[in-house]
């Protein structure tokens, strides 16, 4: 494959020093206060605090702040082409940068879906102009996501498709998925799967359980997800294929993936911040803007199973499933509202507030899972190790802010954290060696 896996806007390489930052990169074994020196867009040195020579560099007072390897989101909806009223490459990647992300993977369920090499090329062309963080584009598994015929997977890969997914819909036909896994041997490219049995989901609007019983909403049972995963892990095992399970939500699903990994299946999976932080109890408010998505928010045992999966490595990474929708599709009764919430701008702060501060998971683990989203697609991990491309999220763990108070970088406002006060804030993001974001109120020091 000749194409670069990620595409972003060309710009000025960063030259700066993060003075006295607490550098934390558990994978690289870094956890100490350093002057993080970035020269020509690469991490040049982790110097002793206050010791770095800052000549020719912008100087950032990072005392008391944390520098993490920037995050990578393997599951976002940039809505291009066709739904630019919800999001586009510029606004979506700006939202990503504001959340501390250096890269994202865009789903292909657009209008029309990304099913042709020309469509992939056009997206990459646009990203070269508009993307402030690296973007990898997936193509669909089936033509036009109709679930009937395979796309030209090899040609799509040559055009730069990072992998394949019919996300938004499951690959309903086991025969078609089997063919795709066979073809994958020829062209590579991880196949990412939205796992759901549409027959079992029916017209469900939320998790099937005590809350759906109380609200009289049709439920989406957990087994809708777990039975689909069980089928597809069997297919992947049989064909020796490489699959990535998207947005795991249920305890049964975690068990299926854990068993598949133990059996040697080439499988990775992700979980979303909202599934890690919330349960179906939130749906009692009947607020679809914040709490309607697919898969739905599940019950507390499911959430606990996801946390355990995150800790023991069954769940490889955090993915936001950032799904922007306009107000008119959300200001309607719950059952009629569009599925999906935005998450790029709040992922770190929400997980820090809901999980790290109460002690449910440790900060290093969170950083590792947030930065680990590219690995399932064969991408190099963002790293603070000297010599690495500068991909850094600079965060103030003590800062509190109210989500949405200052608006959003995203074009849409359907944040599951809307109105919530969070603790921990991204102040600055370096992506692909460039400064991709800095909080307006956070100023850099003068050049020395």
């Amino acid at each position, binding site marked *: 494959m000749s194409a670069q896996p990620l595409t972003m806007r060309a710009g000025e390489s960063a030259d700066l020093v993060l003075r006295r930052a607490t550098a934390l990169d558990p994978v690289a074994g870094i956890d100490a206060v350093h002057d993080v020196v970035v020269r020509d867009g690469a991490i040049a040195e982790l110097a002793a605090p206050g010791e770095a020579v800052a000549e020719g560099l912008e100087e950032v007072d990072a005392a008391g702040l944390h520098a993490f390897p920037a995050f990578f989101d393997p599951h976002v909806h940039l809505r291009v082409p066709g739904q630019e009223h919800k999001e586009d490459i510029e606004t979506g990647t700006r939202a990503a940068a504001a959340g501390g992300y250096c890269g994202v993977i865009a789903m292909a369920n657009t209008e029309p879906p990304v099913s042709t090499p020309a469509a992939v090329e056009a997206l990459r062309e646009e990203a070269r102009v508009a993307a402030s963080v690296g973007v990898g584009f997936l193509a669909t598994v089936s033509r036009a996501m109709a679930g009937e015929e395979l796309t030209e997977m090899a040609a799509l890969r040559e055009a730069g498709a990072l992998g394949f997914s019919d996300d938004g819909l499951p690959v309903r036909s086991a025969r078609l998925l089997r063919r795709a896994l066979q073809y994958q041997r020829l062209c590579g490219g991880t196949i990412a799967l939205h796992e759901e049995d549409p027959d079992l989901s029916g017209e469900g609007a939320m998790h099937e*359980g*005590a809350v759906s*019983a109380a609200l*009289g*909403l*049709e439920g989406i049972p957990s087994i809708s997800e777990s039975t689909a995963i069980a089928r597809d892990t069997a297919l992947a095992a049989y064909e020796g294929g490489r699959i990535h399970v998207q947005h795991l939500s249920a305890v049964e699903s975690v068990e299926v993936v854990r068993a598949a990994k133990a059996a040697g299946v080439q499988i990775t999976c992700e979980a979303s911040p909202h599934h890690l932080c919330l349960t179906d109890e939130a749906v009692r408010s*009947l607020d679809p803007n914040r709490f309607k998505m697919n898969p739905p928010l599940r019950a507390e045992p499911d959430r606990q199973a996801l946390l355990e999966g995150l800790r023991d490595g069954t769940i490889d990474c955090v993915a936001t499933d950032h799904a922007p929708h306009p107000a008119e599709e959300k200001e*309607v*009764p*719950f059952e009629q509202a569009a599925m999906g919430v935005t998450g790029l701008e709040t992922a770190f702060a929400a997980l820090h507030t809901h999980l790290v501060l109460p002690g449910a998971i440790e900060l290093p683990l969170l950083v590792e899972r947030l930065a680990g989203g590219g690995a399932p697609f064969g991408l190099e991990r963002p790293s603070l190790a000297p010599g690495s491309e500068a991909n850094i999220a600079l965060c103030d763990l003590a800062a509190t802010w109210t989500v949405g108070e200052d608006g959003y970088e995203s074009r849409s406002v359907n944040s599951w954290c809307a109105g919530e006060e969070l603790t921990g804030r991204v102040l600055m993001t370096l992506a692909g060696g460039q400064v991709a974001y800095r909080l307006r109120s956070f100023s850099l020091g003068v050049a020395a």
Partner: protein
Amino acid sequence: MRHLLSIEQLSKAEIEAILDRAESFAEVGRRDIKKVPTLRGRTVVTLFYESSTRTSSSFELAAKRLSADLVSVKAAGSSVDKGESLKDTVATLSAYEPAAIVIRHPHAGAAQLVARWADAAVVNAGDGKHEHPSQALLDVYTLRRRLGSLEGRRIWIVGDVLHSRVARSNLIAFRAMGAEVTVCGPPALIPRRLEELGCAVEHSLDRLGEADVVYALRLQRERMRESFVPSLREYAARFQIDSRRLGPRQLLMHPGPVNRGVELSGEAIDSPQSLIAEQVASGLVVRMAILYELLASPEEAPAAAAGDGAARPTPVGQPA
């Protein structure tokens, strides 16, 4: 009480206050002139997105008996047919400055949204499969008149609980009033984990004899297409309330409209144990009481309405 969105929001005392108010309107209903001037000059909008006979007609008549101006909107034939959103429809109707909006909608939470968008008091007249609080209140009223108190009474709710907003609201209301509730129906028509609402669950009528009250639910004919039940015949054989299953001291209720010969046999409907006609009569006075409670209780009433005088009942929730 600013809105009536669910039974869940009401305490036992609030339920009883509404029922006491309804009693006083029942007294008004026995007079030659059945109308009181309480809501004179104020506007009530009924907004129905689903077909309804009993609920819409009784709310409309209740508003008229209270001397309110009534605007009655049915979704069919209105701008809703032209694709107007609920939010815009509510904005349009709000221009008439209604004191109350009574809404029936096929989706859960619709009344709650209207309450957020409109200044009017909002009455949920049924939202999807979620709640139908005025039905529950009129059912409790009907039973209280017959039994005195629901405390310790055993009530069986039988039939398609899954698709029934009446089942949900009544379960909550009956329990709030001290009754023990059992729901009964085929497993596919009982929501998973419903027992967490505090009821027992049965899948046969074998122990129906324990019940003081049998509350039957409508089984929509299309349910068998989705395999919730294999056939109406099989359903009726196992779950129909007929004169053989209904004991002489048991009371029978149904929210209507009845599928005669499906969930109830003809002779059960026409039996002396049946309260179905009384339920309809209760609907009017209970809905008058709801509108009164929302619009004319002391903290809600504008100065102009306060001088209405003799016909005005004692404010709900205040010492008489």
